[in-house]
């Protein structure tokens, strides 16, 4: 049995293919203007790499903000559901997951089978999502990678007054003009955002183990700030960006067996 999960995020599309119980292939690409064409292209590439054709896939489930834009998926499911199923498959001891994507973030608590107990979501405001850090990196004219590294070299943090990404851009530019150390500005941006992620996460009862996933989990500077603020250890699984797609592919297998 071969199943596929497709996670259509705001910025990128993640595809993961499972044969029986093992991951066969995975791939991701950026979302371009033509949404459906981008999804098709990324899916086709992932199939081709695995030496498969569309007909070889028994069941496809889409998830993510754009899950309804995958015409070739048999069904779709929410990211909350897929994240929980995906992480339990990969890291069975995890009970709470924090997923920070480009345009949204969520915290999910679930049981050992991946059944969701509680969750909290932010998908309305960029201040609590990856887009916030990206906007600040753009304002400082550095790449996201540089931004992350700079923050790890910081000596202190300064409060960023603006919560809104649009206002914070101006504030960051002002800080640069005032010749505030760039390292410290980057650290402050991460700290400010970590604070918002933590307050969202603390709406749940936090049960160990905790995992952080999503594209932002790859930002070491941000993870450092999050660790300090959360005051609890968490794991960052390998393939942290693919947890939703993995969950969708696992769910597809469960649907087949029904």
């Amino acid at each position: 049995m071969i199943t596929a999960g497709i996670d259509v995020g705001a910025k990128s599309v993640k595809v993961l293919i499972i044969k029986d119980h093992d991951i066969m292939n995975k791939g991701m690409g950026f979302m371009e203007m033509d949404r459906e064409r981008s999804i098709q292209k990324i899916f086709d590439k992932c199939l081709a790499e695995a030496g498969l054709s569309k007909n070889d896939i028994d069941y496809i489930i889409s998830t993510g903000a754009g899950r309804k834009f995958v015409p070739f998926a048999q069904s779709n499911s929410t990211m909350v559901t897929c994240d929980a199923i995906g992480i339990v498959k990969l890291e069975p001891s995890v009970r709470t997951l924090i997923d920070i994507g480009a345009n949204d973030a969520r915290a999910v608590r679930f049981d050992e089978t991946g059944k969701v107990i509680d969750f909290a979501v932010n998908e309305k405001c960029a201040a609590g999502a990856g887009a916030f850090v990206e906007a600040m990196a753009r304002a400082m004219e550095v790449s996201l990678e540089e931004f992350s590294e700079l923050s790890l070299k910081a000596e202190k943090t300064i409060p960023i007054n603006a919560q809104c990404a649009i206002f914070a851009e101006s504030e960051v530019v002002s800080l640069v003009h005032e010749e505030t150390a760039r390292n410290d500005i980057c650290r402050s941006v991460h700290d400010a955002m970590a604070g918002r992620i933590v307050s969202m996460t603390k709406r749940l009862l936090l049960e160990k183990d905790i995992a952080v996933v999503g594209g932002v989990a790859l930002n070491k500077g941000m993870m450092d700030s999050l660790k300090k603020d959360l005051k609890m250890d968490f794991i960052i699984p390998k393939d942290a960006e693919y947890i939703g797609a993995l969950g969708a592919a696992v769910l597809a297998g469960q649907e087949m067996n029904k």
Partner: protein
Amino acid sequence: MTEHDVDKEYWRWDEYHWKDPDRNWKDAKIISAGVDVGSVSSQAAILTDGELFATANMRTGHNSPDSARRVMNWALEGAEDMTLDDIHYIVGTGYGRLKVPFANKAVTEIACHARGANFMYGPTVRTVMDMGGQDLKVIKCDERGKVLNFMMNEKCAAGTGRGMEVIADILRVPIKEIGDLSMQIDEEPPPISNICVLFAKTEVMGMLYEKMPVNVILAAYATAMADRVSAQVKEAGVEKDFVITGGIAKNRGVVERLERILGVKSLKTHVDYQIAGALGAALFGKVLYEKSLKK
């Protein structure tokens, strides 16, 4: 597209200074001034015996004291040979009010907007909605322009002038043309669905890609903004007479849609809507100077 177009700053609104040609400041007994250093724009207003004599309106820079100095100097530049020393009393207001180096006193922008609106529109004003660059204020006041109560949103760019600037830039439409353009539509499109300006920006890019006409996108954004603002003011309520101040007051696309949703028309005036805060500060300046003389 020429290279010039790439650099064009569509968000940039007109900066100007003005002087009443019929007044001679040397005849005045009291000269007072107000400087409103906002997060996006700064204004200065100079009054001679309580009447508007000169104004200036420009973008705020990165440094508040410097912005205060620049806008005050620009107003003075228009005011014949008046110098800072000729002004008896200066009041600072706005976000940067404590950083106006030459001010005699600072007064909150809430008090100044109510006072300024009372002067601009008359004593019947009861609700002042200030739609500024980075915040939204709804102020209730009495017939003397005294604040009764107010609400303020300064957390989020949705519904603010800064949000509109972002959209102007992405659509490459000069900001002062947005209001008229957004009214040139056959029927109202559904509003932009994202509240967050950063996300709305992406949504607008998608609409452009789908070849949606720019005026339709502007209408969709203006409606979203009017919806957002009306939701925020619902609690405070809007009592007549109702006026809108701040930069967005110049955008009829937002103003007319907001009036439609709220079911109430706003009063209009010939005085620059952005000057209300500085004008109110200058009026306070006059009163404070008179008080100081009595001591």
